[in-house]
Structure formats: structure tokens, C-alpha cells
């Protein structure tokens, strides 16, 4: 448990895809150990890596792409490309940030190709669909649940209006829960830049939400 990576997964159980299979009955190998093993031809090791990160990568690509089918394809492609590039993993960063970077790049490629082929946004937005599912027991107060739903939808709309840079950074930090250092490793920029981008994105989102009638007085303690 002293390993920060393992501790991280224990503290954020809903983001862990491998928990039911590997915890708490077997010792966990770190991502680096799995990568090393996969490099030496251990297919199960890479499978463990996929199971460990597939859900997080899927959430990331879903938020970036807003299309479940494209998100699943890109997630799959991310692991396949990562496996093909294992020999080029230099170990300077954490394996999961390295995989995240591949996922972000593939998502951006998909967005660019989508812009070239489509003019309108995809009709089936996974985040809006997810909002329709009550996940944290707010149904006890229907009015509150409705307000939460409207606020979340407004935030997602606001995210759509941001630039790719700000949107990706805020999704990584604000929604996916990466630290500034981790987001910086994924995006390839200094931590200060990540902080600035997050601040800028939140400033614009705050303006947007305020313009949509979601004032500060609607906050709950």
C-alpha cells in the first residue's frame, strides 16, 4: 500500500477496472512492472494493464468525443497502439500518463476527422445520457436532482464551447481527476501551464454558467 499508484486506485475505487479480479487477493504489480513484463512477451501482463486502465481511458475518450461508439473504438485503438509502442516507452513518465497521451492524441485525430466529415455534433452524447442515471442518491429531493441535472448539462455545453486545449486540460483535471503534474505529463507542458489553463477554463465556464442563470446563490454547501 505504500506504492502511490496502488494507493491511488484504492482511494478511487470507482475508476478501477481491475479491482474485482486482482484485489485484494493477489499482490499487485505496478504499471512499470507490467510494462516490463509485457515487453518481455508476457501477454497477461499487458492484459492486466488493459483491465486496469480501460475504464479510465474510456471515460476520458467519452468526455472528449461525446460519442460512445467512437469512444470505445478509440479506447481499443489506444491499447493496441500502446502495445505496438511498448519498446519506445522510455520510462521517464508513468505508463498510465503515457497511455493517456496516446488516447488524447487518438481522440483529437478523431475529432479532426469528424470535423472534416460532419458539420453537426453527434446526437448521442454519453455524458448527457449518463446524467439521466441517478448515481449519487439525489433522487430523495427531486427538485435538487433536477437542478443538478441542469447544472451538469450546462457545464457540458460550456465545455463544448471551449478550445480543444482548455477542454482537454479541464477534462483531465476537473472531471478525470488527474493532478496538475499528471496532466502536465500527459499534455507535455509545465504544471503552471496546466494550472493556468484550468483556471482559464473555469473562468470561462463560470461566465457561461452565470449567463445561463446558474448563479453562485444556487450552490449547495
Amino acid at each position, binding site marked *: 500500500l505504500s506504492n502511490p499508484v496502488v494507493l491511488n486506485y484504492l482511494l478511487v475505487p470507482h475508476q478501477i477496472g481491475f479491482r474485482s479480479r486482482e484485489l485484494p487477493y493477489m499482490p499487485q504489480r505496478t504499471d512499470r512492472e507490467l510494462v516490463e513484463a509485457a515487453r518481455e512477451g508476457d501477454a497477461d501482463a499487458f492484459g492486466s494493464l488493459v483491465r486496469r486502465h480501460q475504464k479510465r481511458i474510456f471515460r476520458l475518450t467519452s468526455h472528449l468525443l461525446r460519442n460512445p461508439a467512437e469512444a470505445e473504438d478509440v479506447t481499443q485503438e489506444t491499447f493496441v497502439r500502446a502495445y505496438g509502442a511498448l519498446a519506445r516507452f522510455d520510462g521517464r513518465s508513468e505508463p498510465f500518463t503515457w497511455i493517456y497521451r496516446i488516447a488524447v492524441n487518438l481522440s483529437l485525430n478523431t475529432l479532426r476527422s469528424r470535423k472534416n466529415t460532419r458539420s453537426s455534433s453527434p446526437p448521442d452524447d454519453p455524458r448527457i445520457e449518463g446524467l439521466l442515471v441517478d448515481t449519487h442518491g439525489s433522487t430523495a429531493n427531486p427538485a435538487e436532482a433536477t437542478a443538478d441535472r441542469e447544472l451538469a448539462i450546462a457545464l457540458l455545453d460550456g465545455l463544448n464551447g471551449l478550445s480543444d486545449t482548455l477542454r482537454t486540460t479541464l477534462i483531465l483535471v476537473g472531471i478525470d481527476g488527474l493532478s496538475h503534474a499528471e496532466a502536465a505529463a500527459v499534455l507535455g507542458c509545465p504544471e503552471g501551464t496546466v494550472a*493556468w489553463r484550468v483556471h482559464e477554463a473555469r473562468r470561462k465556464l463560470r461566465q457561461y454558467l452565470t449567463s445561463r442563470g446558474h448563479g453562485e446563490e444556487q450552490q449547495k454547501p
Partner: protein
Amino acid sequence: MSGEHEPDSKLVLRAESLARALELREPDWDAFEQRVTERLASAPPAGEALLAPPFPELEEERRTRSGGEPRESVSLADLARATVAKRAENEAASVAKESLALASQQRAQVERIAERKSRAAAQAAAPTPEAQPAKTQPARTNVWDSRGPWLGVAVAAVGLAASFGLYFARQPPNTVVVTQPALTSTPVTVTSAARLGEDPKPSAREAAELPGNAVAPAPSADAVAAIDPPATALSPAGAASGVNSERPSAAKSVPTKAERVVLDESRPAGPGAPTAAGKPQLRPAELKPVEGISDRPSTGAAQAAVGAVLGAARACLAGQSTPSSATLVFGSDGEVDSVRITGGAAGTPAAACVESALKKARVQPFAAPSFSLGVTVRPL
């Protein structure tokens, strides 16, 4: 992890937490893993683009992040300092060019005067029939061959005599004026830097014709323009000040078009003033003072001295609408003894500021006990 987000809006943070709590409709992960495993055998190599940083720091981001908003961080004082530094740099280059032009012009004048003097001396020293053929080249050769040394001595003696004669015959106005201490003042209005260059012209001509002052006459703006036309924007006096290492910034604040500098020509006769009996004091050599000191500062030097500090004085009147007049009294050491302010700034705190600024003006030491100068100071 998200504890680093303060102090952003709680509203946005709450919206983010709602979005973070969303449970997305997920695929069948077992089937997903199987598909991935099947594809691993034929996994294509990842290109460089996929491993490259997707959003590296942009230059604009770096500037904004390190210095805040770039446009807002530049204060007016910074802009003013940068402008002054740039102008001083340009003017220093112009002054250097102008100085070279002046030096070249002075050399030419010295040569012309020397040639004229020797010609006059030769004519005065050799009126005899033997000397007449000296006008032609063969005869002159004969004369020099036979009586060269003696003739040289005679020419030198006559030349000296002719010099003294010429000098006393063409005594400069300032030496004559000394005998009339209460001379009526002659205002000189300067409306532009180009006109500053016009004023010293007669003085330059007079000085050039004086034997002892031929080393450094006041420059001619036309001559400067002929060599380096862009350099005419600066007054010759400014150039002279620029050459002087003690006052390298004298040319920085040449009076602008709207400024009016009135010179008070009246001055009392000082102890060092020339008289008919004594050897007359030469006009001050602005580039290279030869010997002694002048009776009073030259027009160009006075203008340059005031122009150097006029900008600071005008800044004192920022916000005012009416111009003020100042009368500067220079002491014989070249420093400003007193400043009297009249007009809009009189009696206000700005007067002290203007006085302080104008008191920094310096001219070359002069012989007269004092020298006064009127200046119109307009608000910036």
C-alpha cells in the same frame, strides 16, 4: 487531486463534481479485452505523432502565465523610459554624425583661412617688381630658390601683422557690445530645430574668418545638411553639447516646434570682457575651447543647455493649459543662479518643479558676471 483548483468558482467545481460522478454506459469489458487481445498480434506500430505531446505550452501562454496580461503589465512609465532611451540612442548617433561633419567643415574653413592669409601676406610682403612674377609658377620657383628663407620670414611677419589688422578691423559684435552694457535686447524666436540651426550661421562665418577662432567655429546647418541631411534635425549647438563628454545628453531635448526661447542679449561688461586696450577675448570655441573663456555663452550653447532640461520642465506643467515663462540667470561658472517663474505656474507647486528642472541647465563658464535667458515653458 482536485484540491489544487482553488480559488475557482464553487459553482464550476460543483458542476465538475456532478460530471465526475456520472456513470456512463459502458461496453462489455470482457468482450472489449478479448478484442484488444486479438488485435495485439497485429498491432501496428504507433507513429511519432501519437506519442508527441498533444498540447505543449504555447509561447503566448508562457508570456501570459509568467507576466500576466502582457499589455496590462507595461506601465506608462516603462513606455516613456523605453521611448526616451530609444530617442537618446538615435540622437547620439545623429550627434556623432553631425560632429564628424562639423569637424570636416572646420578643417576646410581653417585651410581656407590659412590660404587666404598667406595669399594676402604674400601680396603685402612682395610688392616689388621681383615679387610680381611670383604669380606665375616659374617666377615663384625662382624667388623661392634664391631668397626662400628670408622671404618666408618676411611673409610670416607680414602675415602676423595682417592677422592683427584683420582681427581688429572685423571685431565680432560681442566684443563691441561689451563696451555698451545696456544694449537693447534682441529676442530670437526659435520655432523648430531646423531654425535652431540657422541662428549660428552668421556667427560661424564671423568666427571662421577670425584667425584665432578658426579652430572651432559655430557650425553651419547647411554644411551639415550637405554632408548628412537627416542630421539637420539637430541643432549645431546640440551637436556641440553632444561632443562634450560632460554633457552628452544636451541634445536630447532640443526645443520642439511649439517652444519659444528668447535670448536676452543684454549683459554687463565683466572683468574678463575684452577692451580696446587688451587682447580681445575670442568667441567661445564650442567643440574645443582653445584658451580662456568667452564673454558669455553662445546662442546655440544657451539654447542647447535650456533645451536639455526643457522637457523635464514641461513635464512639471502636465495637466495645465497655460504656458509659463521662466527667466534663467546663469552665473559665470555656467550654472543657473536663479530662476524666476511667471505665468500660469507662478505661485503653484509646479513652479518649484520647473525651477528645479531648469536649474539643471549648464553652459560653459563665461567671463561676464551673469547671463539671463528667457524661456517659455509649455505644458506637455
